[in-house]
C-alpha cells in the first residue's frame, strides 16, 4: 500500500519543518509545502495530497480562510487544522464546514500521525450508513405508504442522479442532522400527490396548499421514522429531522453538488415517488 500523501501549510519555517520531520519519520509522504494563501491552491493542485495539515494563525490570512478556499476548489479536501488556539467556537465551526480534524500545538507526533491515519481510515459508522441508509428510508416509505393507503410499494433503482434530477412536480428537501448529516429528497408529480390526498381524505383535494402540505408531512414522517430506525441501530448517529422545504413548478432541476445521493423510484398505485438520500462523512477524531 502506498504511503499517505500529506501537504503541510504553515507560515513558520520552523513549524513546517517540525511537522514535515514528524510525518517523514512516521513513513508518510510529504508531497508539498505552502507558507501562504498565494502558494496554497497551486501547491494543492500540483501535488494532490490525501491530507492537508493547516496552521490556523498566519500573518495575512487564517487557516479557516485557506480552508474555505481549498473547499471551493475541492469540496472533498481532507484538512486537519493545527493551532495553538483551540476554543469551542472554532472547533464547532471547523466541524460544520467539513474540516476533518483539529489538533493543538505543540504538536504531539503520535497524535498527529494517529489523526492522519484516522482521517484516511474507513469510518465503519459512515460506511454502514452508506450501505444501509437508503434501505432504511425505503422501508420507512413502504411502511408509511402501505399503512396509510393499504396498497403495495415496489422499487426500481435509480442510477442516474449524477449531476442533477429533473423534478416530476413537487420536491420536498429534508435536512438530516447528526453525526453524519445528510439530506432526503422526496419527489412526485402533482397528480400523484393529489391521488394520495384523495385516498387519505376520501375526497378530492380542495386546493394546492392541501396537496403541498401532505407532501411536506409525508416527507417529515418518512425521514423521522427512518432516522429513528437508524438511531435505534446505533445511537451515535444521533440523527434529527429538520422540517422540509418544498419546491414545485415545471422543469425544476435538483442537484446536490457536493454530496453523493443514492436514489430509487418507488412504484405505487398512485404514481412514482422518487426517493434520494445522501450523507456526508463527519469529522474524524478531535484531539
Amino acid at each position, binding site marked *: 500500500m502506498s504511503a499517505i500523501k500529506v501537504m503541510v501549510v504553515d507560515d513558520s519555517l520552523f513549524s513546517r519543518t517540525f511537522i514535515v520531520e514528524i510525518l517523514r519519520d512516521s513513513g508518510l509522504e510529504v508531497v508539498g509545502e505552502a507558507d501562504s494563501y498565494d502558494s496554497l491552491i497551486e501547491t494543492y493542485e500540483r501535488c494532490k495530497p490525501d491530507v492537508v495539515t493547516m496552521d490556523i494563525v498566519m500573518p495575512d490570512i487564517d487557516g*479557516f*480562510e485557506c480552508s*474555505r*478556499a481549498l*473547499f*471551493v476548489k475541492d*469540496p472533498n479536501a481532507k484538512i486537519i487544522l493545527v493551532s495553538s488556539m483551540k476554543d*469551542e*467556537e472554532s472547533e*464547532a*465551526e471547523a466541524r*460544520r*464546514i*467539513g474540516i476533518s480534524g483539529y489538533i493543538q500545538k505543540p504538536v504531539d507526533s503520535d497524535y498527529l500521525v494517529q489523526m492522519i491515519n484516522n482521517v484516511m481510515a474507513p469510518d465503519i459508522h459512515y460506511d454502514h450508513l452508506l450501505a444501509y441508509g437508503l434501505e432504511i428510508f425505503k422501508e420507512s416509505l413502504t411502511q408509511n405508504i402501505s399503512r396509510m393507503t393499504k396498497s403495495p410499494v415496489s422499487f426500481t433503482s435509480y442510477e442516474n442522479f449524477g*449531476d*442533477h434530477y429533473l423534478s416530476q412536480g413537487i*420536491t420536498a*428537501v*429534508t*435536512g*438530516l*442532522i*447528526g453525526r453524519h*448529516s*445528510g*439530506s432526503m*429528497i422526496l419527489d412526485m408529480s402533482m397528480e400523484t400527490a393529489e391521488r394520495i390526498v384523495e385516498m387519505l381524505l376520501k375526497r378530492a383535494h380542495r386546493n394546492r396548499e392541501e396537496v*403541498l402540505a401532505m407532501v*411536506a408531512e409525508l416527507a417529515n414522517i418518512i425521514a423521522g421514522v427512518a432516522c429513528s430506525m437508524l438511531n435505534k441501530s446505533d445511537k451515535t448517529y444521533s440523527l*434529527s*429531522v*429538520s*422540517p*422540509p*422545504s*418544498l*419546491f*414545485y*413548478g*415545471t*422543469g*425544476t*432541476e*435538483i*442537484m*446536490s*453538488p*457536493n*454530496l453523493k445521493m443514492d436514489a430509487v423510484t418507488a412504484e405505487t398505485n398512485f404514481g412514482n415517488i422518487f426517493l434520494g438520500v*445522501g450523507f*456526508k462523512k463527519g469529522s474524524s477524531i478531535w484531539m
Partner: protein
Amino acid sequence: MDVSIINPLLTAFTEVLPQLGFQSVERRKVSKIEAAFQYNGILLNISLFGTVKGAILFGMDIEAAKKFASKMMMDMPVAELDVMARSAISEMGNMVCANTCTQFTKIGITDLDISPPTLMISENGEATLPVPKSIVVNFLIDDIELSAYVSLMNK
C-alpha cells in the same frame, strides 16, 4: 419570527464573503415573507437543526449565479452554471451557514448544525419555506443581487 434572528446571518455574510474574494457586502432590504414565494434562477437550501430549526435559502438569478461563481473562482469565466460553478455556490452556502451557527453561539444558541446544501434551478419555480412567516434579506454583493431567506422556528 423575530427579525433579530437574521443578525447571525448578517454577521456571517460580512465575515465569510470577503474571504471568498468579494469586496463589498451591502445589505439592502429586509422584509417579512409568507411561506410560499416564486423564484427565477437558483435556490440553495441548507437545513438547520438545534434550539432553532428550519432552513436558510439563497436565491439568485442565473446570470447573477454565474457572476458569483466566477468571482469565487478567481474571476475565471463562467459561461454556464456547470458542475464546478454549482459546487462553488454550494460551498459558499455551506460556509455562510456554518458561520451563522457560530454567530448563534454568541447569543447562547450553541447546539445548531447544518445539512449539506441542495440546489434547485428553475425558470418559473415556486417554493414553500418550512416556517410560515419568514424573513428575506436582499444583498448586493459586488453588484450581484442575492436574496437570503431565513426560515427558522424555535424547536
